[in-house]
């Protein structure tokens, strides 16, 4: 039973436009959410996170939105750049920290120049 779902395996966006990556979860005990970015042959790299007490967190070009009632979060990248092309993983924890994360299956983002 997948507790964290990323239903879009891939997404293509034109350079300069907005990329929106989505994630849904089923476990209402999750209280901390993270997005990781992964390039081929490298480990996941932390991008941005949000606590369940917030509904938005912004860091430069990256914004994460959390809708607790819908159990949905999204990552917005604007403007998208070719270097953003990677696999993006949504992850969740029920311990308010990065301990014992449950990951989604990832979305491959391709930013076209």
């Amino acid at each position, binding site marked *: 039973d997948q507790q964290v779902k*990323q239903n879009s395996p891939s997404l293509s966006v034109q350079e300069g436009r907005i990329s929106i990556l989505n994630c849904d979860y089923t476990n209402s005990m999750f209280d901390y959410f993270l997005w990781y970015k992964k390039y081929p042959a490298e480990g*996941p790299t*932390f991008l941005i996170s949000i606590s369940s007490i917030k509904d938005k967190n912004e860091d430069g070009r990256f914004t994460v939105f959390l809708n607790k009632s819908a159990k949905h979060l999204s990552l917005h990248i604007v403007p998208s750049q070719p270097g953003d092309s990677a696999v993006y*993983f949504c992850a969740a924890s029920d311990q308010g*920290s990065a*301990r*014992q994360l449950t990951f989604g299956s990832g979305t491959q983002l391709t930013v076209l120049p």
Partner: protein
Amino acid sequence: GAGVSQTPSNKVTEKGKYVELRCDPISGHTALYWYRQSLGQGPEFLIYFQGTGAADDSGLPNDRFFAVRPEGSVSTLKIQRTERGDSAVYLCASSLTPDSTEAFFGQGTRLTVV
């Protein structure tokens, strides 16, 4: 080193053999995690260490898998009697404390069982 280091990067072994995968966390990080990533999937939690002790090993799939962290720094994931289904990328991560809001991942060890 500056980041989490995992060795080897790649390991090919025959079915039934024993393998050890090593993780060198960021210096000073007390929490260490092992995850396994199968093709097309996200990482799945295996085990978490706080210091030298395994605080939670609920993700280990069966008793062929074992991990140690004897001095609270380097950790070794051990797999006995490997099976083809064990083929995956094994990722290690560390964080300053278990309550840290960010975990740093190594590049992983790609294990192939033939």
